[in-house]
């Protein structure tokens, strides 16, 4: 047994990069999917809307922990293919990101008056061009505060990757806690690192909200 030393703090800080890798991967894979979902949910075509809504209900109705367990322990049993912890949590977080961002972005797209689409159509723009040049930029502005707010949720939730043994911040804290028998120091340190990332994001989201609401 040994004390909680600055070396432990450094080890925890080093694990931060894996938290950031997870966040980056989830966004890179989840965001395009989220856009697709948002467009499908606002589309007029019935089938794509139903499929997107069904996907959303399932992902938002199941704990993130469930998604992770399912992809890490569940799927390999059925398919016979064992995947790494990183791959399975990345898939789980990408789906989670897609569902929540998709819903935020759908709200923003629907907040833009339908007349704007029609105006684009009158100018002879195709559906995608209407979105790309008329709706998208306005919706992006509206969705930005909530998107940054979601980022906070995502950073916090990557702590669940620790459960399948992926060594990110939370797991590094568990390891330090077990090695030093100082759970208070270890977990307080981990919490402080999360707070140092999330709190500025929260403040940014709030200032964006104030600015964008004031501008309207």
């Amino acid at each position, binding site marked *: 047994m040994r004390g909680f030393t600055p070396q432990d703090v450094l080890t925890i800080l080093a694990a931060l990069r894996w938290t950031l890798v997870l966040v980056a991967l989830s966004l890179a894979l989840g965001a395009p999917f989220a856009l697709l979902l948002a467009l499908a949910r606002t589309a007029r075509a019935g089938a794509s809307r139903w499929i997107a809504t069904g996907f959303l209900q399932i992902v938002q109705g*199941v704990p993130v922990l469930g998604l992770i367990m399912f992809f890490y322990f569940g799927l390999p049993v059925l398919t016979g293919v064992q995947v790494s912890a990183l791959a399975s949590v990345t898939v789980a977080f990408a789906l989670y990101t897609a569902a929540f961002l998709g819903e935020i972005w759908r709200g923003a797209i629907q907040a833009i008056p339908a007349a704007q689409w029609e105006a684009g159509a009158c100018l002879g723009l195709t559906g995608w061009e209407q979105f790309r040049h008329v709706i998208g930029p306005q919706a992006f502005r509206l969705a930005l505060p909530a998107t940054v707010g979601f980022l906070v949720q995502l950073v916090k939730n990557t702590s669940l990757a620790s459960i399948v043994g992926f060594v990110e911040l939370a797991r590094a804290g568990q390891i330090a806690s077990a090695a030093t028998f100082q*759970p208070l120091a270890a977990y307080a340190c981990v919490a402080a690192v999360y707070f140092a990332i999330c709190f500025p994001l929260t403040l940014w989201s709030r200032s964006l909200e104030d600015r964008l609401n004031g501008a309207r």
Partner: protein
Amino acid sequence: MNRLNFSQLWRYDDVLLHGVLVTLLLTLIATVAGLAIGALCASAAQSRFASLRLAVRAYVEIIRNTPTLIQIFLIFFVLPFAGLRLPPVYAAATALSIYFGAHATEILRSGLASIPRSQLEAGQCLGMTRWEVFRHVILPPALRNVFPSLTSQIVLLFLGTSLASQVSAEELFHAAGFVESRTYRSFEVYAVVCAIYLALVLLMRGAFFAVERLAFRWPTGR
């Protein structure tokens, strides 16, 4: 081995049912305790004392900007050092109440802030006492304003109780781990457990929607 086989799960229906009950119980305790914390803190946030307001702000921001999993670990592993050895379910219930309390504080505070001051003054003009103004003028519209965000937060809390399994509180995911270790049917176990969560979430959303339609249908004047 790779063929789907749900039949073994049926032998553990009592384990899973117990998990569901503990999950629901955790949600209920954290909702009630969290709302009480939220009501206290939301009124403290309007206090004359700057230090009290600052303390509430700090509580809300710290809890909302750190992972719930770490909060549960902190409560579960650190309280014994203070001489308080809580069983896992109690520790998880405490952590989840503190977590939900912070969210409830923020939601209730913004709900109260959403009522224009002129409403309060109008009530006072009618000769109502402070309590009567609160009870009849502020509370009903404030409740309606906060209901949607409060209920979606309760759904998130319900999903978040799954984290209690990590300190071996016997909720649904803990039950899932137990059944998995006995049957090795990981796919079926997690598929079924996720389906149970989904069904309960849909039920909750439906119930909240019905309550909203029934309880808050007076005209808004907007």
